[in-house]
């Protein structure tokens, strides 16, 4: 088991190494002007400098914090609304068409509206993140509730479980695989919207720093920012997968 995952890790690193090699070859051949497209060495140097002494570390923390706050907000609101809608078939029928109308709206299209109400503020960015990222959690909760094994509703009636117990002990755990998968999706959306929000509302963070670097032709800084964003996404997704495996241990076990 251990052996297998090590091999997978090795394979994954191999692809990454090839990618960096290709990147280096393209930049060394000067296929694109170095002003716009720095090689891996220059990007790495900018990364080290930015993280050790520069502003990049604090900007990274700003962005991570924004992403996490927005994601938490989205998760709580999404699951909570999902429970409210999911518990009753009538509520589902009532609200479903409206949700289908709102869901495909790009969250970035909501930014001007959010600006009109909240101005260029951190709260505005948070609201945009929460709005954009709550959909996966909301829909997963609703679908999870609807997909609960009907036999379990009968069991709950026979045992005399209260409505709150049915939600807490049966419906939520049975929807949990879907909800956890949606949390991962929601985190990705939160990262994207955190960056977009910072760019548009010029809030402190990686989004703004990337934009500034690009405007002043500091392409190594620009690429360093992108590398950090990639790393944030990777780490977040890995942490959530880990939590998912722990929480869904009952699914993995088999005879």
């Amino acid at each position, binding site marked *: 088991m251990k052996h297998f995952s090590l091999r997978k890790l090795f394979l994954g690193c191999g692809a990454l190494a090839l990618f960096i090699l290709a990147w280096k070859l393209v930049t060394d051949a000067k296929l694109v002007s170095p002003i716009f497209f720095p090689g891996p060495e220059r990007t790495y140097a900018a990364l080290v400098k930015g993280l050790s002494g520069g502003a990049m570390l604090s900007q990274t923390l700003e962005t991570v914090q924004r992403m996490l706050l927005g994601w938490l907000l989205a998760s709580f609101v999404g699951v909570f609304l999902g429970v409210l809608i999911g518990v009753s078939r009538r509520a589902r029928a009532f609200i479903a068409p409206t949700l289908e109308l709102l869901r495909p709206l790009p969250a970035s299209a909501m930014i001007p509206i959010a600006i009109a109400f909240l101005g260029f503020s951190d709260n505005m960015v948070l609201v945009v993140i929460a709005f954009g990222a709550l959909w996966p959690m909301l829909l997963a909760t609703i679908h999870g509730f609807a997909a609960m*094994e009907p*036999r*379990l509703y*009968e*069991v*709950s*009636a*026979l*045992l*005399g*479980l*209260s409505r709150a*117990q049915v939600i807490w*002990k*049966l419906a939520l*755990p*049975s929807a*949990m695989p879907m909800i956890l998968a949606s949390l991962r999706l929601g985190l990705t959306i939160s990262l994207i919207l955190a960056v977009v929000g910072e760019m548009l509302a010029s809030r402190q963070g990686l989004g703004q720093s990337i934009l500034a670097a690009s405007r002043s032709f500091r392409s190594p800084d620009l690429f360093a920012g992108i590398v950090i964003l990639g790393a944030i996404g990777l780490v977040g997704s890995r942490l959530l997968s880990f939590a998912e495996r722990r929480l*869904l*241990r*009952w*699914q993995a*076990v*088999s*005879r």
Partner: protein
Amino acid sequence: MVVTQLSTRPRHGEGNSTPASGEARIRIFDVTLSYGSLQIIGGISLDIAPGETICVIGPSGCGKTTLLRMLAGLARPTSGSVELDGSVLGGPNRSVAIVFQDYGKALLPWRTAAGNVSLALEARGCPGAERLAITREMLEKIGLGRHADKYPAEMSGGMQQRLQIARCLAQEPKVLLMDEPFGALDAMTRQALQDEVLGLVATTGATMVFVTHDLEEAIYLGDRIICLQPNPGRVGRIVDVRLARPRNQLLTRENPEFLRLRRELYDLIKDDHQ
């Protein structure tokens, strides 16, 4: 399922449904059940005494499971009534537990064996320490003591069905309903569970209604066997089983009375299939 529509009045009260001595635990009185114009159950009356074990057999589509769901309060009779200890059963009731055939769907896959049993206790607001003790006791009783921390997916079919029975026992039911509970299990497991259930029913004094399509199982377990007839479901015949208890997988099954009953029931069921 093929159920033909029947326009004639159901013949009810067929078969001899004399109540056992004393007050009945369950009284089924002239119960019918229809979905739209389709009659599933057409007039069944039956009294079941406390501690009695009733087995219900009959061809598929005769309403065995529907009858059991009415006794559980999961289905409402269209007319007539089901009474538990003299009061009308209006819906599911903690005094009535049911073991479903599809244990895989009835158990909570995210809870361990102990967690599944505990659910029944949580439902009735049993405090934590007591809950642990009772859970352990129930699992011991059904032979799952060593498997308390296993998830259903880690258990065999027989163990999962044991677990469902343990959860039902934790309800401390007066009536235990069984819907072809061992139908999906292999022969050896099935016989072991038959004996365990008989033992549990004897010690708890619970009343049992056991639906099965296995004639020998019905004879082995029952005090009385209700043979249902289809279209619409009604009582065709009630057969008394006068075999000594405790029963024994070899001796009871070799008893001439057992063999006689098997032939009698076989002929009855065969007639229904023609």
